[in-house]
């Protein structure tokens, strides 16, 4: 396994999360600044990564780091502490090989024999810890740990069997989780609907929720009911929302029906002034002056005092 993290005397400083140590760009100027790490756990900002590694493998830019890095191996860090990040990676790797379960030790055993098996199980865990610590420490101890890993990896069929078992269990748990999620999502949206909608509809939705929740013991049924119910609620929401929205342009008419001011109007006595840099830079619009002149000239047209009196 070549992607083993190399031992580190020192891991990159963790105090500065806002400045890239390579290009020095800061979060103030670039709010989307994000950091990536590779097998050597040296932090680089994502633009440094694409700049340096897009053309192929290149050495890590940190001084004293001799590792050659590839772009596709860069990833976001999960933990704030790089030490933790590395330890979790090591443990993950070790657990892939050392994946015996309690039943591998104790299956079919009784009495003292079982106690003895449990002791072996605890020794096994002890060994895992030793290997992890040795790998984290590096040097000769890491070499010993690598040998241990190799040795354990010989039992290929046993490992694969346990992997398969874990996969099945994971899928089951995920399925269970999804149904739970579905239910809670339904609950949440309905609760939201209750707050937003009023009166009769509220009561109806409450009833609907009870029905869906009662009927949701069977996963398929829950999904179907949920989908139907969700669509109805969404439709309802949209109708309600349309009533409660407003258009910012409501009642805002186009300029005047009496006149149009052309974009380019030349008035000889103004031309020199309007082209002066100090006028241009301040943003003054001569066109607005023309607009105003016309607007004032035409205002009042179309207003019929007699009609308004009548109202």
């Amino acid at each position, binding site marked *: 396994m070549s992607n083993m993290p190399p031992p580190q005397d020192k891991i990159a400083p963790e105090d500065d999360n806002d400045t890239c140590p390579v290009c020095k760009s800061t979060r103030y100027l670039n709010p989307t600044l994000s950091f990536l790490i590779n097998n050597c756990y040296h932090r680089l900002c994502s633009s440094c990564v694409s700049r340096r590694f897009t053309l192929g493998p290149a050495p890590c830019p940190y001084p004293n780091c001799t590792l050659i890095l590839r772009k596709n191996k860069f990833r976001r860090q999960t933990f704030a502490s790089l030490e933790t990040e590395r330890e979790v990676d090591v443990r993950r790797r070790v657990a892939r090989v050392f994946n015996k379960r309690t039943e591998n030790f104790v299956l079919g055993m009784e009495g003292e024999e079982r106690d003895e098996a449990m002791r072996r199980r605890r020794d096994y865990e002890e060994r895992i810890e030793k290997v992890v610590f040795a790998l984290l420490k590096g040097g000769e101890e890491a070499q010993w740990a690598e040998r241990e890993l190799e040795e354990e990896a010989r039992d290929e069929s046993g490992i694969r069997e346990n992997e398969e078992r874990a996969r099945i269990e994971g899928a089951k748990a995920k399925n269970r989780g999804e149904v739970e999620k579905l239910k809670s999502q339904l609950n949440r949206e309905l609760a939201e609907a209750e707050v937003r909608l009023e009166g009769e509809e509220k009561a109806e939705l409450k009833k609907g929720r009870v029905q869906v929740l009662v009927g949701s013991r069977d996963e398929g049924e829950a999904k179907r009911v949920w989908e139907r119910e969700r669509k109805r609620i969404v439709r309802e929401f949209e109708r309600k929302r349309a009533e409660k929205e407003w258009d910012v342009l409501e009642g805002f008419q186009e300029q005047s029906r009496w006149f149009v001011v052309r974009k380019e109007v030349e008035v000889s006595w103004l031309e020199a002034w309007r082209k002066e840099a100090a006028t241009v830079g301040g*943003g003054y619009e001569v066109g607005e002056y023309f607009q105003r002149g016309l607007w004032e000239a035409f205002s009042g047209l179309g207003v019929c005092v007699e009609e308004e009196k009548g109202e």
Partner: protein
Amino acid sequence: MASNGSSRQLSNVQIQDPSDEEDSEMEVTERMNIRTRNKFVRGKKLGEGTYAIVYLGHDTSTTPPTPVAIKKIKLAPTSEGLSMDAIREVKYLRELHHPNIISLLSIYAHNSNLSLVLEFLPGGDLELLMKDQSLTYSTADIKSWMGMAIRGLAWCHRHFVLHRDIKPNNLLLAADGVLKLGDFGLARSFADPMRVMTNKVITLWYRPPELLYGARFYSGAVDVWSLGTVFAELILRTPLLPGQSDLGQLSLIAKALGAPSERNWPGVSALPDWVPPTEGGPEQGMDFFVGMFASVGVEGAELVRGMLRLDPKKRVTAEEALRHKWFQVEPRATHPSRLPRKEGGEEKVGRDLGRGWEEDERVRGVGRRLDFGGAL
């Protein structure tokens, strides 16, 4: 003069036939004044500022009486007459009638004091709303507030009035959630060509670069910038450009949005107070705005950018902003009646209308008291 009929306390005035205190020899205007004054009952004080005291009042000509805000203008101690702010406010509010602009209901004089009767807006203001950490609001809500603010502003600009003091605490909220532009104390109408205007307007954090560079000929683009910074503040919930001084403000703008130069802003170096920027790169493009204002989507970020262009000629106008496609895409603007609101904005109304602003660090450095040259 008016002392004939006004010796009694105003708050005791009941609905009554005004004729019994009207002297037939009085001038018509005087009689009208008394009639107007008697229509309103003044209640408790809501707030006090440098140039006005704001009271809660009621219009007794309706049943039930409708609440109003009565703004009693203090006379300047140097007795130069009415302050410029009051004159501007009356002048422009008399003209502008729009659902998104505070309405001036009436004016009357009393003992040589002037009182403005304004619409009562108990919903507080946007500043109050943003500061309240317990309050959350969505993109649809921002769209609604911005839509109303831009509508109000577009109305001002369509009628050739510059507001010149747009900031979150001048965007007031009515009881039904509708946002209204308030405080027209710095407003003026569009200047005629070659007529200088003062550049010492707009609260520093919301002041556009052309005013900081001393431009004396400007347009509605100054208000659009202010509204753009308010927009950004609504999204980020922290002021976008909290500068400490004029130069500090310019350097913040350069650092955050890009350094002004002849290339991105023709004519900028000819402005009176131009100083070449020492910080900042080229003007920020869409990438920056999309990254910074991700929550309002690409269209929203584009509108923020349009409102915060360095060159005022490139900035969108209020009307263009109103027709921007952000207002047409999902999520649609929340109906005002459904907007989140804050309770107990009453006191703040008093402060807003009465300008309790000298205690407010946001407005330190604003020059409304310093320079009225070329104004009005």
